[in-house]
């Protein structure tokens, strides 16, 4: 296949990618869009394999078979609740692929003395650096979400200096490569330093901030793919990488805005480590909480006119999305108005709660975003907070000393009564004490969200 034909067919692929993203503007056509994107991807791969002068088909075939098995098995077997870590993992492997491409290209180009242009060396540097950071950073994010590592920020004295030192080392190595240093070891060392930086950079970021990290690393892989496109003079890589980079950056900024925190604060603030332990201390100062039972909650809900569920990460952990829908349906059968209040950063991925509730077949029109649900809350009889914490913390509104002061929240404390379903009084991932729990109108149901909802469902049947 000639270069012109190849490039024209790549253009078709670019169009399918743009349409795939365009179709994501409504749930109706989103799935078709994704299939279209997949078809475009298949076309690009086929076109590449048919390119003139390509060799080593056996190697490529075996590698693709292995990769495909990993991809299908991983993607098919993962539970919906484990999606954030799966997305992190697939993001990482893409970054890793780019770093390896950079290494192979450098190795290929350097035996020719003086032929490595500034353009080539800079794109090799960028692909290796960003790809590696994305790879190791995503693996750490995966480990944190999978709870192989603590979700709490991991901090130690002088951390910023160590991180800066490692990044500087990587950049100096990159500088040497651009300055003309030859030898694969330089690129290998650059990749190692960048991998180390990726790990160190994500370790101090708390579990609650993972949505921001994952979308940032997603942008990183996009940028790395674009850099690889410059390296290989391949337009489809440049465009696809740019689309992903723009998307990831935009999502990162949107989430920062939703939390009213700068991206710098999210990434370098080691958020949630400062106040660790504030929960028990607050208990000792004499405030008390009121505990309730599933039976009482069932009665409260059964006789309410309007109920709002506010889900958070706890719902995902407990995999209680089907149970909440079941309870909601029982309530609707009794003529209770049921809505869900979704905070933009609830969960571990942007829009995480929407996916979970969609899995449980909750009708879209019951899902209300923060701005839509807040005006409804003063007329709401009962709010049930399911495993959410920081996104309903009134300290964000009232306490200028709180680390989350200024973050827009769901104003559950404006409803007539609030029931918080939570496993214990411990503060959430962000480690911030929540005054909501001590309010007179609040009662706590100490249980796993799934167990609690099952019990409520059973009690509702006998009502």
């Amino acid at each position, binding site marked *: 296949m000639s270069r012109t034909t190849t490039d024209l067919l790549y253009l078709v692929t670019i169009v399918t990618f743009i349409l795939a993203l365009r179709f994501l503007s409504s749930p109706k056509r989103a799935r078709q869009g994704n299939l279209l994107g997949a078809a475009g991807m298949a076309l690009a791969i086929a076109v590449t394999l048919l390119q003139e002068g390509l060799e080593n088909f056996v190697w490529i075939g075996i590698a693709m078979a292995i990769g495909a098995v990993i991809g299908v098995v991983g993607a098919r077997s993962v539970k919906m609740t484990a999606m954030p870590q799966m997305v992190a993992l697939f993001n990482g*492997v893409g970054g890793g692929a780019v770093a390896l491409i950079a290494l192979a290209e450098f190795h290929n180009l350097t035996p020719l003395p003086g032929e490595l242009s500034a353009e080539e060396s800079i794109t090799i540097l960028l692909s290796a650096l960003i790809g590696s950071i994305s790879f190791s950073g995503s693996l750490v994010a995966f480990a944190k979400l999978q709870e192989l590592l603590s979700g709490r920020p991991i901090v130690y004295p002088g951390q910023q200096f160590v991180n800066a030192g490692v990044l500087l080392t990587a950049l100096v190595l990159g500088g040497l490569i651009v300055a003309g240093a030859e030898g694969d070891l330089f690129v290998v060392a650059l990749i190692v330093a960048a991998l180390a930086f990726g790990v160190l950079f994500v370790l101090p970021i708390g579990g609650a901030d993972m949505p921001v990290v994952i979308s940032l690393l997603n942008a990183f892989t996009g940028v790395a793919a674009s850099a690889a496109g410059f390296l290989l003079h391949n337009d489809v890589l440049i465009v696809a990488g740019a689309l992903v980079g*723009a998307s990831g950056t935009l999502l990162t900024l949107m989430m920062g805005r939703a939390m009213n925190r700068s991206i710098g604060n999210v990434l370098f603030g080691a958020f949630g480590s400062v106040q660790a332990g504030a929960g028990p201390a607050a208990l000792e100062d004499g405030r008390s909480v009121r505990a309730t039972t599933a039976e009482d909650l069932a009665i409260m809900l059964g006789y309410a006119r309007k109920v709002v569920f506010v889900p958070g990460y706890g719902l995902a952990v407990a995999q209680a999305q089907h149970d909440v829908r079941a309870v909601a349906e029982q309530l609707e059968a009794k003529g209770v108005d049921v809505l869900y209040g979704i905070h933009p950063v609830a969960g571990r991925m*942007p829009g995480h709660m929407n996916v979970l509730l969609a899995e449980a077949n909750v009708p879209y029109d019951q899902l209300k975003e923060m701005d839509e649900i807040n005006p409804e809350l003063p007329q709401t009889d009962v709010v049930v907070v399911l495993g959410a914490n920081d996104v309903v913390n009134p300290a964000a509104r009232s306490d200028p000393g709180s680390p989350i002061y200024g973050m827009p929240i769901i104003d559950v404390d404006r409803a007539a009564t609030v029931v918080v379903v939570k496993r214990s009084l411990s503060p959430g991932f962000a480690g911030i004490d929540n005054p909501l729990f001590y309010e007179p109108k609040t009662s706590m149901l100490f249980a796993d969200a799934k167990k609690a909802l099952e019990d409520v469902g059973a009690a509702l049947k006998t009502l």
Partner: protein
Amino acid sequence: MNETLVFELTILVLAIFLGIEVISKVPTMLHTPLMSGTNAIHGIVLVGAILVAGRAGADTLTLVVGFFAVVLGTANVVGGFVVTDRMLEMFKQRRPRKTE
């Protein structure tokens, strides 16, 4: 700076603006599939990996590195699209809820 580079930079800048334009129309509800979908799209690096692994006269190091790049790239593409499809399957059209 040669002509190719200028041309590629032009494409890059236009693609970034196009990306921002298209993505800002995606509703919050679909942000998770968006992330997963763009994740699948950057699997396009597989094309680069194949080009590197399949280059004529590649030595052992290139072959081995290229081999692993193709494995990772394929896992990215296949995993990315399958996960996204599984998510979007849940957003299928439902009959509107009956009003009480």
